[in-house]
């Protein structure tokens, strides 16, 4: 023990510095070969009579266990079972033998004279655990790649439309960012181990081994979600694996009596947080003050101000808080699922049907058509496994969903609509009265509004906008057919598999556009208000478009899995090809996208102790030149279960399991941006018939000549050498379980070197007259670590509890991006994290005499600022290049954080006591920020200018003013004249968006009524749950995950759910 203590002590000084190193040191310490057994123990039993004890060790199925440890208790005598599972040991009869083997409960038996039969019970949590990996499963205990997974029950605690949104905090190494709460479009962006490229860094997502979307699957259908993170796990995906892979496996039936599970829930949704807007009087006051700041005359007259203040003329001088006016307090969500699973000897089945509905948060004001947000989805699935013969299993899946998303017609999507709401003025309209949209006007006879500004309802269809609805119906259908044939007749352990999948989707997009009359109030002499009508209440004009997509996938593989004594070898050889039709996001929609791949994998382990694995993916993509089409992506990994070594035994009571892993390999990414077929000869265009006004190249010669002279032009320059990104990945991991598995921990450190990232070389002169073609010259390094720990225990029989944490850190750095040359290193994206923002650095708000203070603080003269006449309270920036003036060369990317967090944490707590179960999940992120822009930054900004837009309430109290000249104000002096100084990109507007939130909380109670047995009801659970219930964040601009920018987000929602689960 001394040695260990010494080791710990020695490293103690670094304990708080580098957690990853600490963990490794701990691991290293445990490994130290130490002789700490007591010498006297052996002597005690020397006197007893010894005999050759023989026996066989089997598992509960009667299969022999090879390599099990058989040891005399309290003695150093011991042996292991041989290939037949038998052992011989010279020991006294009646001595206590301790029989142990990884994955089984350790058993103590009394040595007998005759041949013994020892049956070890499975320690189900260990050996039987398998992990879904690429194209198959592997035993968790011998797995050497970095894989994390989450099981079904974690995904259905609270109903959400998309499984993306529930992954946050469940899996280490997975980043999710949910920008929007729009029904049907609220799926979070998912990254595996952050972003390692500035092109598309989204992971490959497969459902049952075929590339499919995960966001519209019913969580009740999911058995597990596995995330493959390192090269060892992903190399087989070749050109598609570099960003990590998410594998979703759906549930399948087991041979058992039919089990019926019914869940039903209904929820109330409320928006998490909205930013408050100023009222009319505040607006006008602030406006006039801002004009005065610029030396301009007041815009709002005293008469108008008085009207705003006393609300005496609410139709003509309204005060509308748009967010309150157009948004509901709450909306509804329901989810229902029924599934049946089971199987007889030959057929196993899982059949599921689910329905999900979610309402929108925006009011519809009683129109005769439905234009609110609404999302409905019906999911179905039938997974069948049929034993056609003893050695043949046929699996057949049919699944799909029908969904319907309804939303208002805005022409700009939900973010355009929300932006319009924030950019609206509070006095532009009193809203809708008797179904009429009322707009104020600037031409009242008595008191005149200086301007009207934008309306907060852009989706209603009043004179300036088009209203109506947009409805998208999706119908997705998926088939899988798989035949698994054991080939033991050829050689034992060999099997052959062939699989075919077909996916199709059909969509109907329908919109109804309608314009509405606008009514302007006209004050009559008798004080009544009549309305002047502009425009007409049009009838709805419908347009309908359809879309379709289909793709298919074929795979055939040979699997080999056999043990020779203590050696286990598995091998896989697989060929696949796939084709996707109507591949929409490209220049060649009529040409399907195709892939061909060859996969090889060999794993070896000796006695579940030493593991090695080699993977190779050989892929081809039609997107590259024939000679550059195929690539080879090898990866290797090794593992060592150190806790199986003899020297480890003394530690076992504390550390009962320890595995060390390492992997290296090369993976590719072909989602590189640019267009398809960049290798072809430079494309030209001919017969272009549209004019410059429409972005075309035709020309209009002549005199009032209606015939266009068509244009021909050089389209772009291509590069025949274009290829995929290459990611060289390394991963070093350790899995340690403590105290009889009650505490399980995993730690991984990884490093990735991504090269060949597609870019344009902007170091070439721009006057050569064309955009240089894409080349593979970009380089990014990324690295990080992941730690997860879970404690699980019970107190007595009735109380079970658990607590888990997983923590991920991810960092990256652009090594080469070929940007146009700049004056200073800090200006480049190169050398910074992907997404690092370019911004000025604020020194202070200007005050008389700040020049001298500036010089004291920064050691150089106060620089000329962006604008020539700076006023008190204006933002003053730091002259980073010390050349005496502020310009673009003083913008740095070395400040602040990015949109995606560097640290993510997930915490799980829960307990089960008798019939009560409580579980909670928290997620948090830090080293993350959001950049405020648009109206959230600059007062009175709207789409067309900076003078008639919206104003946030926050501006009123947190702007520097002469009366409150605080350096601590959030906003600098309000000004139009110096807008170029005060509202440019600077760290003033970069806001820390770290947060910790209670993502889900569930309280469930298992009801037990006497009648249940009669009707065959095994389970009846009533649960209350919530989603996004609590958020702790210093960020005040709405939810910390959303954006306060020119594309603000549909608000995220809190969900309160009551659900009932029945099991038959």
């Amino acid at each position, binding site marked *: 023990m001394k040695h260990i203590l010494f080791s710990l002590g020695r490293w103690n000084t670094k304990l708080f510095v580098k957690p990853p190193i600490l963990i490794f040191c701990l691991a290293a310490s445990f490994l130290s070969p130490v002789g700490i057994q007591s010498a006297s123990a052996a002597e005690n039993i020397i006197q007893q009579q010894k005999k050759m004890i023989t026996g066989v060790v089997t598992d509960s199925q009667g299969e022999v266990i090879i390599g099990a440890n058989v040891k005399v208790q309290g003695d150093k005598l011991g042996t292991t079972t041989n290939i037949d599972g038998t052992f011989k040991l010279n020991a006294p009869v009646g001595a206590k033998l301790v029989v142990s083997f990884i994955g089984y409960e350790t058993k103590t038996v009394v040595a007998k004279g005759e041949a013994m039969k020892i049956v070890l019970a499975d320690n189900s949590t260990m050996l039987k655990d398998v992990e879904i990996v690429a194209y198959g499963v592997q035993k968790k205990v011998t797995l050497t790649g970095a894989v994390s997974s989450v099981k079904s029950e974690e995904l259905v605690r609270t109903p959400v439309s998309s499984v993306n949104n529930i992954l946050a905090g469940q899996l280490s190494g997975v980043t999710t960012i949910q920008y929007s709460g729009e029904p049907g479009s609220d799926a979070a962006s998912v990254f595996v181990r952050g972003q390692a490229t500035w092109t598309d860094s989204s992971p490959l997502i497969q459902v049952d081994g075929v590339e499919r979307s995960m966001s519209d699957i019913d969580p009740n259908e999911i058995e597990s979600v596995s995330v493959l993170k390192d090269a060892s796990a992903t190399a087989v995906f070749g050109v598609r694996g570099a960003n990590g892979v998410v594998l979703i496996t759906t549930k399948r039936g087991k041979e058992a009596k039919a089990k019926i599970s019914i869940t039903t829930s209904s929820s109330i949704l409320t928006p998490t947080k909205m930013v408050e807007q100023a009222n009319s009087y505040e607006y006008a006051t602030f406006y006039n003050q801002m004009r005065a700041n610029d030396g301009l005359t007041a815009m709002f007259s005293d008469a108008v101000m008085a009207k705003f203040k006393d609300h005496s003329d609410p139709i003509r001088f309204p005060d509308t808080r748009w967010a309150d006016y157009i948004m509901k307090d709450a909306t509804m969500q329901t989810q229902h699922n029924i599934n049946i699973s089971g199987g007889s000897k030959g057929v196993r089945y899982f059949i599921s049907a689910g329905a999900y509905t979610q309402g929108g948060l925006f009011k519809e004001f009683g129109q005769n058509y439905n234009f609110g947000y609404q999302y409905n989805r019906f999911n179905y699935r039938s997974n069948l496994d049929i034993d056609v013969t003893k050695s043949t299993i046929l699996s057949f899946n049919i699944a799909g969903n029908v969904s319907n998303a309804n939303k208002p017609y805005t022409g700009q999507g939900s973010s355009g609509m929300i932006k319009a709401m924030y950019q609206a003025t509070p006095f532009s309209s009193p809203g809708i009265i008797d179904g009429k949209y009322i707009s104020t006007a600037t031409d009242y006879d008595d008191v005149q509004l200086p301007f009207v500004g934008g309306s907060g309802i852009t989706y209603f269809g009043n004179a300036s906008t088009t209203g109506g609805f947009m409805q998208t119906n999706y119908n997705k259908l998926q088939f899988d057919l798989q035949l698994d044939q054991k080939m033991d007749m050829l050689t034992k352990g060999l099997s052959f598999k062939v699989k075919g999948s077909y996916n199709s989707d059909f969509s109907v997009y329908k919109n109804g556009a309608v314009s509405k009359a606008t009514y302007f109030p006209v004050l009559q002499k008798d004080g009544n208000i009549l309305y002047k009508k502009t425009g007409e209440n049009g009838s709805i004009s419908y347009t309908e478009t359809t879309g379709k997509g289909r793709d*298919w996938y074929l795979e055939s593989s040979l699997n080999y899995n056999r043990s020779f004594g203590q050696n286990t070898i598995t091998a896989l050889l697989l060929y696949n090809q796939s084709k996707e039709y109507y591949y929409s996001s490209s220049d060649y929609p009529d040409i399907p996208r195709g892939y061909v791949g060859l996969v090889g994998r060999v794993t070896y382990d000796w006695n579940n102790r030493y593991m090695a694995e080699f993977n190779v993916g050989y892929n081809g993509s039609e997107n590259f030149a024939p000679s550059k089409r195929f690539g080879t992506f090898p990866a290797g990994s090794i593992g060592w279960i150190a806790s199986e070594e003899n020297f480890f035994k003394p530690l076992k009571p504390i550390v009962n399991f320890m595995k060390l892993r390492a992997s290296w390999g090369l993976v590719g990414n072909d989602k590189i941006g640019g267009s398809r077929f960049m290798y*072809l000869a430079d494309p030209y265009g001919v017969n272009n018939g549209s004019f410059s006004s429409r972005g075309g190249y035709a020309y209009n010669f002549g005199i009032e000549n209606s015939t266009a002279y*068509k244009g021909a032009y050089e389209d772009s320059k291509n590069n025949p050498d274009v290829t995929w990104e290459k990611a060289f990945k390394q991963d070093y991991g350790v899995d340690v379980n403590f105290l009889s598995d009650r505490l399980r921990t995993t730690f991984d450190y990884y490093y990735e070197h991504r090269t060949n990232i597609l870019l344009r070389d902007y170091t070439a*002169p721009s006057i050569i007259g064309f955009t*240089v073609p894409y080349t593979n010259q970009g380089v990014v390094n990324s690295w990080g670590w992941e730690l997860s720990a879970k404690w699980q225990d019970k107190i007595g029989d009735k109380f079970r509890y658990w607590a888990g944490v997983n923590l991920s850190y991810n960092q990256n750095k652009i090594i080469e991006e070929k940007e146009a040359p*700049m004056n200073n290193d800090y200006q480049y994206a190169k050398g910074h994290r992907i997404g690092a923002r370019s911004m000025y650095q604020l020194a202070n708000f200007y005050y008389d005499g700040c020049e001298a203070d500036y010089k004291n603080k920064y050691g150089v003269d106060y620089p000329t600022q962006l604008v020539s006449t700076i006023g008190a309270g204006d933002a003053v920036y730091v002259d980073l290049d010390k050349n005496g003036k502020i310009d673009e*060369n003083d913008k740095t990317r070395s400040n602040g954080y990015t949109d995606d967090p560097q640290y993510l944490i997930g915490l799980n707590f829960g307990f089960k006591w008798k019939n009560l179960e409580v579980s909670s999940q928290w997620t948090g992120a830090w080293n993350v920020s959001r950049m405020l822009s648009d109206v959230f930054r600059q007062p009175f900004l709207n789409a067309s200018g900076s003078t008639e837009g919206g104003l946030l309430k926050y501006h009123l109290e947190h702007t520097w003013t002469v009366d409150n000249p605080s350096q601590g104000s959030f906003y600098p002096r309000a000004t139009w004249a110096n*807008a170029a100084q005060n509202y440019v990109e600077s760290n003033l507007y970069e806001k820390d968006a770290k947060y910790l939130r209670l993502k889900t909380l569930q309280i469930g109670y298992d009801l037990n009524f006497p009648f249940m047995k009669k009707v065959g009801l095994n389970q009846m659970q009533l649960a209350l749950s919530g989603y996004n219930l609590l958020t702790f964040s210093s960020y005040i601009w709405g939810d910390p995950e959303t954006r306060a920018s020119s594309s603000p987000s549909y608000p995220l929602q809190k969900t309160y759910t009551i659900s009932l689960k029945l099991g038959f």
Partner: protein
Amino acid sequence: MKLHKKLFFGAVLATITAIGTGSCTDELAVGNAFLDKAAGASVTQDTVFNNPEYTRQFLAAIYSLQYYGLPYVSSNNPPLSVSYFTGKFDALSDCYQFHYSNSRVFSQYYSGTFNANTGGGIYGYLTENVWVLVRRAYLLLENIDRVPNMDAAEKARLCDEARCLIASSYFNMFRNYGGLPIITKTFTGTETSYDIPRASVEKTVNFMVGLLDKVIKDGNLPWGYTGADAQTNTGRWTKAGAMALKCKILQFAASPLFNDTKSYYGGSTEAEKDSLVWYGGYRAELWNQCKQACADFFTQLNANGVYALTQPSAKTQEAYRYAYRFGYINEASTEILHSVRVSTSTRDSKYQWAYLNNGRNERYSYTPTQEYVEMFPWNDGTPFDWSAAQNAGKLDQMFIKGDTVVGTQDLQHRVLTRDPRLYETIRINGVPQGIDWNSGIISGNIYENWVGGSDAGNQPATETGYFATGYANNKYYAGDIFYTTAHYPHWCAIRLSDIYLTYAEALLQASNDFSGALKYVDDVRARVGLGGLAACNPDKNLTSNKANLLDEILRERACELGLEDSRYFDLVRYKRADRFETQTHGLRMYRLKKDATGKWVRATDKWWNGDKKTDKANKTAPGFYEPTHFDFEKFELTNGTRVQWTGFDAKWYLQPFPQSEVNKKYGLVQNPGW
């Protein structure tokens, strides 16, 4: 087992059907063969230059890259100069103030924040498609020899049109940047290094003029298109266009900015030392070259005709206005030496110049200044003088005069008292808004530019919007007629009256030819009914005082060529820091109305959309008659205060190259001061 088999076959059948349907168009190949179906780019360089029609199309597409002077799109893609987020050159001169705060002109130029790192700019080095145009023109020149089935004469014509396109886009760049890198071939993109140094002003001028001289000498281009050819070919470069462009290039080159005894920025910068932004000294022969180029042009004009100033059909205000308007706005005008087209209809929803002007949108608030309005003489040609008019009590008649006839609401015998071009260029208070496209007859409601008036509303009071200065732009717009009935909107790149005035300037500068100069100026004035310049300005000694005559020529150019990119470059050419520093003004007009006691009091309300209706029945009501009496209040413009009003930095004479481009070190030297 039976059940299993049924299920088995059912499943196999379903999947085979599904996959079969999915792949019925494919043969099921494996391996590399599976991927072999990738597209071949259907159209390549060979396709284009193996086909005479595609080759002609290739040239047409180069035309589509030309500079168009009116901002008509909402875009942040090149060319930025046509985006209303940029703004026009004229808004940097003393004649117009632009009030759209989201524009580069307002937010970057007025505030003085624009610099070499800002990107874009009013005419960005890299954001105007100039270099794309140049490359494509050379692609044509380099590949035309291999085009089959096209005769040599046509090839020569296409090549010479391409040369004019190169020269004209170089000139657009030159007047903003000075000497430029000279590109004489296409690049491949695989070059390992580039050496394209910036050339001196002299070399750049010689390069442009060289291209044009070849075109002029070769004679492959027609002098001008006439008859049926004109119907289909107007807009192509012609020999007349090439010769006129040469005049303009030499005019710019010979002007003091580049041609002076000392450089505009003191002489110590690298660009000045290398003569990249001037000639290195004063060269009298440059004005001679300009004069000669103009003389050559007029010799050819006299010999070949085709082009002429559009003349009025009668000596009436309507006829003068109509002639002037037709001259610049109509594609059939004989006055246009080169025009550029981007659309065939002013009602094209993507042609926002017309659409948003019709909405009097702030994005097109090119509001004329009081200084500009005062440049326009009285309608006989005598200069307008505010204090003289004020002393004479003539301010109420400084735009229109007429008679209030008892019982008739509208003013009768309305006379437009000033230079007809004023009303064509600017929307003036009291002038009927309706214009007949074919005759020039004006009618309808008057413009009410006073504070509270139907058109201006509060805009002059708060100094915002379309009427912020008390005036609104009317050029390239002509009332609502340009939009309300569709027209072909072209940009008048070179106009004959410009060449008249250029010749006048060259005659004066090269050889002190006062009478020659006056003749060409007076020709331009006569078209709109103005008297001779010298006769109208007896106190200015215009037959002998060179400085005064030069000033008058520049003023005449401002009045003739409003919103045609002329004034800004005139001020640049002549290094007129004094004009850039001039604090400009607007005019707040207040309608005066008799109160109950018969006293004139200010009223901030509407007439035709207000009093005229409500007081219609009562001939004695104060609002019955069209307002004719006003208070006038000149005010300093404060919305969009220009840094230059408090001191003009000479660096602003030329635009900065983007710093990142300079940093690429292929020989680009930054302009002085940036």
